[in-house]
């Protein structure tokens, strides 16, 4: 820690130790790294003192909703709100933070009465003025303001200029702020007005459904949308006026499509989106004023969602068409608009997806060109806005997409270069926000680099990457010892090491790595994402077992040369060898139980049973040898069931 970070941490600890009931403080600074240090220290302190630490790091769109959530009786402990980060532009964060502090100011009394703990709001320097201007009640009750990145004198020679947050962003975020309040409003309207439902009820329900979907509360969003659809159907015949205007209807249809997509129901999702897009496309030219903006915004969004569904389905041409139409609409936006930067980001995201669709269509050269073009633009933007972390996020996504594409094309050197650049960006982001999200990204990039080095047969480099991943996974597990899923990550990297060492011909090294992987993974619940790794472990145990079985043939010679130590005796070697086959059988058995059609693993288990049977017999363990034989026969008999086309 730097001296001013240490000073800020000292102040924060003092309040953590002494405050009782509700309290509120700020952690501010334009540099995210010292803030991240303080956040992590606070998390550790809370963990060590039995205080619950709740980190709230939503995207700008969901930030303001936190004020409501916390006022509704949030759990006791420390609530740390991060109002800055790579998920939004500075002006988006400022606009969202304005909404948040306004909403918090209105709920000060609710926090005081219902929240047993502290709220720490973390953000850029502008947060101080936003709080002072928009939330005087909260500013007034602040316990302290920590500025971990502000060394030097407090007095500046020249006063800085103030830039008002972009209010159009606020307007955009506004309706999504509190879906629960919209829902309560709708319930009251329904109770007061009875039946038939009114347009204001329908609007409140639509707002609630959209807000809930945005917050990832898909089931609740679906219930709202269904209730609204039922009422629309019921009132279609007898109501004098329409419950929703045509744009509202299109928004509802598109929203239902999105909800269906979240539930993996692609066909109904596409049908609903096509209906909505068809209407919007045909009528957008006649819309005026606010309706025109609303229609274009809906259309852009729904085209993007449609493209992603088609891409998942493998319909690359359809996806390409959708993304291209979305891009055309985005390019038509006025460059003088205060939301120009936001539009640019959306445009670059759409172009990246378009490139993926083009690649899926079978034109990797064009896809590579599109990705390189986007990457160049992004690098320029990132250079022009060094304080804007948002660009780095897209830079990372582009580099990952390009790296994958180059790897698939066989350009391993290009893939390595691109992945290395992505890794450097991810490391910067991780420095700013040392949390699970970037940890996983780093892990994925390390793995990518490890695979590329393996494909280039550069085993030392591959081993170095695998060891880096292992160290990272071990560190994470030490930090979160209660998260059992992290044991699976550790096992993955032991397995990768084992495979590389085995390929290098380092049998003892591979054996040791495999043993570590076995110890990590034997009691873990089998997760869907870990199946391939378990299958790999089964195969590696089988391969190492076979390697040892080869050495077993020359075992008497070994015994003479090495003075007959137990582990090196023929019997010891046989037991060692049998251990690997047993593990291969046990791990393979777990895979077969959940993936009975996995023929490779079945074969590994069958062969392992067969070899094990021949080892156990000479060792005198006839009972187990018979058991293995029976098992092999059972596997062999059931093999036919899994060789059908469906299998």
């Amino acid at each position: 820690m730097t001296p001013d970070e240490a000073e800020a941490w000292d102040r924060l600890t003092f309040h953590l130790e002494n405050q009782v009931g509700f309290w509120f403080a700020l952690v501010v600074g334009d540099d995210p790294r010292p803030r991240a240090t303080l956040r992590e220290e606070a998390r550790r302190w809370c963990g060590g003192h039995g205080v619950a630490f709740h980190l709230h790091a939503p995207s700008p769109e969901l930030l303001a909703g936190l004020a409501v959530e916390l006022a509704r009786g949030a759990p006791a402990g420390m609530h740390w709100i991060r109002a800055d980060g790579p998920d939004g532009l500075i002006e988006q964060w400022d606009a969202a933070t304005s909404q948040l502090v306004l909403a918090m100011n209105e709920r000060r009394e609710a926090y005081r009465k219902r929240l047993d703990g502290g709220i720490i709001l973390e953000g850029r320097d502008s947060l101080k003025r936003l709080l002072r201007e928009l939330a005087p009640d909260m500013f007034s009750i602040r316990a302290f303001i920590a500025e971990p990145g502000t060394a030097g004198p407090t007095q500046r020679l020249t006063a800085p200029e103030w830039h008002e947050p972009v209010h159009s962003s606020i307007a955009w975020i506004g309706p999504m702020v509190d879906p629960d309040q919209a829902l309560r409003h709708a319930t009251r309207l329904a109770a007061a007005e009875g039946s038939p439902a009114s347009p204001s009820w329908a609007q409140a329900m639509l707002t609630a459904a959209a807000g809930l979907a945005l917050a990832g509360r898909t089931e609740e969003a679906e219930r709202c949308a269904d209730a609204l659809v039922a009422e629309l159907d019921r009132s279609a015949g007898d109501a004098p006026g329409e419950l929703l205007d045509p744009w509202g209807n299109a928004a509802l249809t598109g929203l239902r499509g999105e909800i269906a997509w979240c539930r993996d129901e692609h066909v109904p999702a596409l049908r609903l989106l096509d209906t909505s897009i068809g209407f919007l496309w045909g009528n957008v030219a006649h819309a005026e004023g606010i309706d025109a903006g609303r229609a274009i915004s809906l259309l852009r969004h729904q085209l993007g969602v449609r493209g992603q569904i088609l891409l998942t389905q493998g319909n690359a041409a359809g996806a390409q068409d959708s993304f291209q139409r979305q891009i055309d609409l985005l390019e038509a936006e006025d460059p003088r608009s205060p939301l120009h930067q936001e539009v640019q980001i959306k445009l670059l995201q759409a172009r990246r997806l378009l490139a993926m669709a083009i690649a899926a269509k079978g034109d990797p050269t064009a896809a590579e060109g599109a990705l390189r073009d986007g990457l160049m633009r992004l690098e320029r933007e990132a250079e022009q806005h060094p304080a804007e972390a948002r660009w780095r996020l897209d830079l990372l996504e582009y580099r990952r997409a390009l790296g994958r594409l180059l790897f698939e094309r066989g350009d391993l050197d290009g893939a390595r270069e691109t992945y290395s650049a992505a890794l450097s960006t991810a490391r910067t982001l991780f420095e700013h926000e040392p949390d699970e999200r970037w940890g996983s990204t780093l892990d994925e990039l390390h793995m990518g680099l490890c695979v590329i080095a393996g494909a280039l047969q550069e085993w030392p480099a591959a081993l170095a990457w695998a060891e880096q991943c292992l160290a990272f996974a071990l560190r994470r597990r030490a930090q979160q010892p209660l998260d059992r899923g992290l044991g699976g990550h550790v096992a993955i990297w032991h397995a990768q090491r084992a495979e590389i060492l085995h390929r290098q011909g380092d049998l003892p090294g591979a054996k040791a790595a495999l043993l570590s992987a076995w110890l990590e993974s034997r009691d873990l619940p089998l997760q869907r994402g870990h199946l391939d790794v378990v299958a790999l472990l089964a195969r590696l145990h089988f391969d190492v077992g076979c390697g040892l079985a080869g050495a077993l043939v020359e075992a008497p010679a070994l015994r003479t040369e090495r003075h007959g130590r137990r582990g090196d005796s023929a019997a010891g070697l046989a037991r060692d060898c049998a251990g690997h086959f047993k593990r291969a059988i046990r791990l393979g058995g777990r895979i077969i139980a959940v993936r009975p059609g996995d023929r490779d693993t079945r074969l590994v288990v069958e062969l392992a049973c067969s070899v094990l049977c021949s080892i156990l017999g000479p060792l005198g363990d006839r009972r187990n040898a018979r058991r293995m034989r029976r098992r092999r026969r059972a596997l062999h008999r059931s093999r036919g069931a899994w060789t059908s086309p469906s299998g």
Partner: protein
Amino acid sequence: MQPIDRNIQRALFRALRDRPLNLMDEEDRKLYEPLHDDRHDPVKRLFDTIDFSEIESVQLVAGFRGTGKTTELSRLEKDLWEAGFHVIRVDLDDFIDMHSPVDIREFLLILAGALSEQLTSERLLGKEKGLEKSFVERMRSLLPKMPSEITANAGVANVKLALRGDPGFRGQIREQLSGRLAELTKQIRAYHGEILEALRERAGREVKLVVILDSLEHLRGTGETSETVRRSVEELFFTHAARISLPDTHMVMSVPAFLFLEGNNLAAQFMNGAVQAWPAYQVQRRGGERTEVVDRIIRLVERRGDWRKILPDQAALERLIVASGGHLRDLLNMLVEAVHLSGHGVNEGSAEKIIGVAQRAYLPLYKDEIEVLGRVAANKNLKDVRAEEQERVLRFLDSGLLLCYLNDDFWYDVHPLVRDIVRSA
């Protein structure tokens, strides 16, 4: 000097932590120290106006945040009870959404609901009698299509929540009471008459009732709503003044500072009306000379704990008091910081360090802010503030960047923590 013991540090932290005192409470009374002199004591002025007005009065108090207003209103409550008045004190923060425009119909309903809730206090009607006088029954005749909240068993609590948090519910109330304001006023007055009668019956004598409505000064929109909220408050106090006041009752209401700053003849709108302002404590005169308030604040700090454990000498404490500009919340925050630093030992430079930390909370000041603050600092008044800058000045007063003082007239100054920065810019 050695770092202080952690237990002492913790005790001092809790004693100095900013919270309003309730002078109806014995323990809190031990911590209280009067800071105003008799001539400028707003509580004395409020008390005298009530005492001297025969039947009813309305006094509006323009208060700024963090100046000890809530504590002083609790002193007024205590003094009034001791002088034989019946007092109902309501924190309107619990009832009103302070950031949306307020409507006279809602306000009257809130007023009746709030009184109804407070009547259950044992000093007034007690739980049984108080509930009998529930305003919910009366509302049934006024609102034929009543939302479920009113008909529910826990009516008042639910209505309170809905009025405060649900604009849709408020809209329904307005709609149903549209064109029926006279009827509503009549009902509220009749209900209030019942309350007075019940209080008289219980006390066995004539009752002089005082209603204190606190926190109304928080009625300030922010951002895009500020103008509409402001207009609604003006309409409430200027157009509907006669409807707000309750017969045979003295009322004290804390009101937003802008009503006071506008200088309209607000007091004349009410029978026996008066407007008082709650200034910051004047620790320095306009010319910068130290006042005797500093000694009183030292006594106040002494009541809370032994400040000698956290500061090197009295000069350091005085330095903090002067730097706070008489803004009590800032002073208490600085003393908490002194408690924090004392964990590493107290030294000569402690006061400067504490002031530096307090100062940083207000910084950076931006060009547009400095320009306005500079003009106020030069003239010590708001005469040079343009109409379009009034909202900003109110925000400065809210955040404490500008402080309001009272001698024979009101004067204003920039907070001492940023005064030099404003001057040098």
